[in-house]
């Protein structure tokens, strides 16, 4: 290790300035956020109803849960060859990897949250004879929301980890691409560190935004410290 080769804050700051001037800062950040947004939203839209359904049908869960448990410890990065095989090299592959990375934890968390619903609340909903749509919207979803928000935060964190890795192989824009590209194109370690700093800062901002959801009036009951 030669510490002198690691650029200091001033050099990195200048590198970020350079990226901004060349128009790459906004372009790469937007590209990465774009991939995360689509992969993550697709995961949310599919995982929540899927997890709810599994949580409510014990038979479905018995069939699917072992598969989920086996898939879960496999790093999303192990899917890279399959992603490329199915979707080619490009955005769709990267989005697919992000989708996978957030889909599994979200599904499992939703399923477990359904199990944790107080049976008294389900009984009350049954007693009042509310139609299925209202039972889902007014009882099931709000009952799991506090736990779901925690899972959404964790899943977004994982999605952000994965976007960087996915961009290193599958695409030619984004912060992950910036890091490999800077090294390949002439050992620009100032740009490498600049990319890392940007990833870290954006990750923190995303997490802070998710945390705000935990302050909603209708979910605060679900967190211990009241």
């Amino acid at each position, binding site marked *: 290790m030669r510490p002198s080769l690691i650029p200091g804050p001033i050099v990195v700051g200048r590198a970020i300035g350079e990226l901004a001037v060349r128009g790459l800062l906004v372009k790469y950040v937007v590209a990465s956020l774009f991939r995360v947004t689509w992969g993550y939203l697709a995961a949310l839209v599919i995982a929540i109803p899927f997890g709810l359904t599994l949580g409510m049908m014990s038979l479905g869960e018995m069939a699917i849960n072992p598969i989920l448990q086996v898939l879960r410890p496999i790093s999303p990065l192990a899917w890279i060859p399959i992603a490329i095989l199915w979707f080619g090299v490009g955005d769709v592959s990267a989005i697919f990897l992000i989708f996978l990375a957030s889909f599994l934890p979200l599904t499992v968390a939703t399923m477990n949250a359904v199990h944790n619903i*107080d049976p008294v609340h389900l*009984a*009350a909903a049954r*007693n*009042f004879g509310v139609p299925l749509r209202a039972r889902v919207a007014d009882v099931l979803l709000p*009952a799991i929301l506090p736990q779901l928000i925690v899972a959404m935060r964790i899943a977004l964190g994982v999605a952000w980890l994965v976007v960087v890795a996915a961009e290193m192989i599958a695409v030619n824009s984004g912060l992950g691409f910036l890091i490999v590209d800077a090294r390949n194109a002439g050992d620009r370690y100032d740009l490498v560190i600049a990319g890392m700093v940007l990833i870290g800062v954006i990750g923190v901002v995303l997490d802070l935004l998710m945390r705000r959801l935990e302050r909603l009036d*209708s979910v605060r009951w679900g967190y211990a410290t009241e």
Partner: protein
Amino acid sequence: MKVQFTDVSMRFGAMEVLQHVTIGVEEGEFLCIVGPSGCGKSTLLNIAGGFLAPAAGSVTIDGEPVTAPDRRRIFVFQERGVFPWLTVEGNIGFGLFDMPEEARRQRVAQYIQLVGLDGFEKAYPRELSGGMKQRVEVARALAVNPDVLFLDEPFGALDSITRLQMRSELLRIWRAERKTVLFVTHDIDESVQLADRVVVMSARPGRIRRVVDIDIAHPRDLSSKRYIELRDLIFGEIGLAHQV
């Protein structure tokens, strides 16, 4: 008979919980069920509510067999039955999903007033005391205008002062609305204060040991001779000497 239990028996696996329970409840009657812990009181109420099917025998309401929960008869749990994610208003209006918006608002306001929660419309349950949460749950039940109310130790988690207040409020509401009430408690005083009749059950497997008529007019004087007589009768029936 409004609610008729006919030869109801229940078992969980090999354990017999209820044996040959037969009793009728009249329209508008306030019936209390007391008995030792684990004797099957909650089970009996859950069968009447349609949440459990009896192993043998039947329950009919207005002559129709009970097969599933029904919004014409509402089960009130201990205060934890309120939905913590809904405001007081949201909770009380929960069962009124098929009402037009304006009528629904009026109905909610009416029951908020009935249970004395004016000013707390927008509050969440976590901001309320135990007694207030219990009021919300009672109001939520009454708002759908059921003809039978099942209450399973509704005041069990409250302190003794709040409990006394809640009892007289429940009586006031019951007199105003004339519901048929089945009320499970293991507080014998509570049963003598509230009920028209008290069903005393045996230890598990629960059978009806005795049905006691509480022939005291409301408001009841808790130091009257008759009150103490009836209370001691029930204590004796359960097999407790009334001493500490």
